[in-house]
């Protein structure tokens, strides 16, 4: 437990020092999406009886919970390759489980901060949805999926450049194709099948359904929970193998 607290506390301290920068970074992208896609086009487009802003905000929540949780990979990467802080953890008498759990929780913490920023921004745009238990559970599961994936991949990459490539090839396409900005129902059947394999598609669906009080699909939650478990175990394995 002491190892878990030490690693998580370090992440919180770094977050404290970067708080203003981090917060503005978390606000800028959603604000731009809300202004351009939501506000400017909001009156033109309607989605299943909702305004486009009401459709967009749960999508932004899903996307930000993914990108912010996954961003922990960059921090781990910098700590590993540039500051060599990872060696301090490796030389300490702490378990891999403590390290992975603390870094994953740090990713989830960042994701939750980003979501709060988006919800506050959406209030400024006059949109208030239903933010109940299932909404937050979907966010937590989605953030855990991507934070543990981030820890695993941060251990596998050999350089900071590799890390950027992973973000470009995994996160950016998913952010656009995972049901964040448009409904997948109108796409051809085979495209829908392919996109249904993305975790973000299920996160977007679960978050949107709960925020708009629509029918929930338990499959989304079970799938996210299973993926979170798989990626967490993968991260444990990767941290164990990170010693050269």
């Amino acid at each position: 437990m002491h190892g878990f607290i030490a690693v998580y506390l370090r992440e919180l301290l770094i977050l404290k020092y970067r708080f203003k920068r981090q917060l503005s970074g978390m606000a800028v992208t959603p604000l731009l999406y809300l202004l351009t896609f939501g506000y400017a086009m909001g009156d033109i487009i309607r989605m299943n009886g909702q305004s486009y802003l009401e459709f967009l905000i749960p999508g932004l929540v899903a996307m930000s919970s993914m990108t912010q949780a996954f961003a922990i990979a960059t921090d781990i990467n910098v700590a590993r390759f540039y500051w060599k802080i990872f060696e301090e953890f490796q030389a300490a008498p702490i378990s891999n489980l403590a390290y992975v759990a603390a870094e994953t929780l740090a990713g989830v913490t960042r994701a939750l901060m980003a979501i709060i920023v988006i919800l506050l921004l959406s209030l400024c745009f006059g949109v208030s949805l239903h933010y109940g238990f299932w909404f937050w559970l979907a966010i937590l599961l989605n953030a855990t999926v991507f934070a543990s994936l981030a820890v695993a991949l941060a251990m596998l990459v050999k350089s900071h450049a590799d890390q950027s490539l992973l973000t470009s090839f995994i996160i950016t396409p998913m952010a656009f194709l995972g049901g964040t900005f448009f409904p997948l129902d109108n796409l051809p059947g085979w495209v829908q099948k392919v996109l249904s394999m993305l975790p973000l598609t299920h996160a977007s669906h679960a978050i949107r359904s709960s925020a708009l009080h629509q029918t929930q699909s338990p499959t989304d939650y079970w799938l996210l929970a299973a993926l979170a478990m798989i990626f967490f175990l993968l991260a444990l394995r990767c941290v164990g193998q990170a010693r050269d």
Partner: protein
Amino acid sequence: MIEIDQLQKSYGTVRAVDGLDLRVAAGELFAFLGPNGAGKSTTIRMLTGLTRPDGGSARLNGYDIRREPVAAKRQCGLVAQQTNLDNELTVRENLDIHGRLFAMPARERRERIEELLAFVEMSDRAESLVKTLSGGLKRRVMIARALLHRPPILFLDEPTVGLDAAIRRRIWALLKRTRQQGATLFLTTHYIEEAEFLADRVAFLDQGQIVALDAPERLMAGLGTWAIDQLDESGLSTSYFASREEAGAFCTLQTQELTLRRVNLEDVFLDLTGKKVR
């Protein structure tokens, strides 16, 4: 006590550490001397759990580094070759996180941090962000951090590399004081004078193997006391002499420019391997 038996590590086809056998007694200040790539850092990385050995075994105060890694890690502190402090945190926060990693109770952690900041003469910089410190101050923080959890064994990988002479001497004084407090110190260096000044025993490492191991004065005595360097058509050659008189007699027979000096550990290494340490 450090016990190493047939420790091995390879990177591809290169044998970084090749069947190393070594005993370092409790309370000893031991130095590994050798050129870059000799296997010094790899040995320390294996002993401190940063690198997995390919073969062999090692025990730190009786704890096997492979079978009991957590207990073995509790026995040691590490000052790594590269600065590995959190630049964005303060000196105190860096030390506090380290104390938590080693499960130190809150009160003991606070007291020990004050004690070590005083020890490395940095009490006034406790709240400074690490990124604002000079290289020498960062090294001192690293030494304080490595000592925080009272490890019986302290590993130092090139602790003064890149530092100027004055700061290097301050760090030597710190290491001597640490040793006086009963710790076992195991350091790697390629600074000849550092090994001569600090170490009880020195091991010369070359291509992953120990080529000589003894007290510095005994290693040097094997060659002589005085050395004469002379430059001729074939390059720089060195001759060794037991006494100054013998060296003086040699000089009278020479016509080239000569330099008379005392024998040092570099001469021993050169004599053994044909290579320079640096």
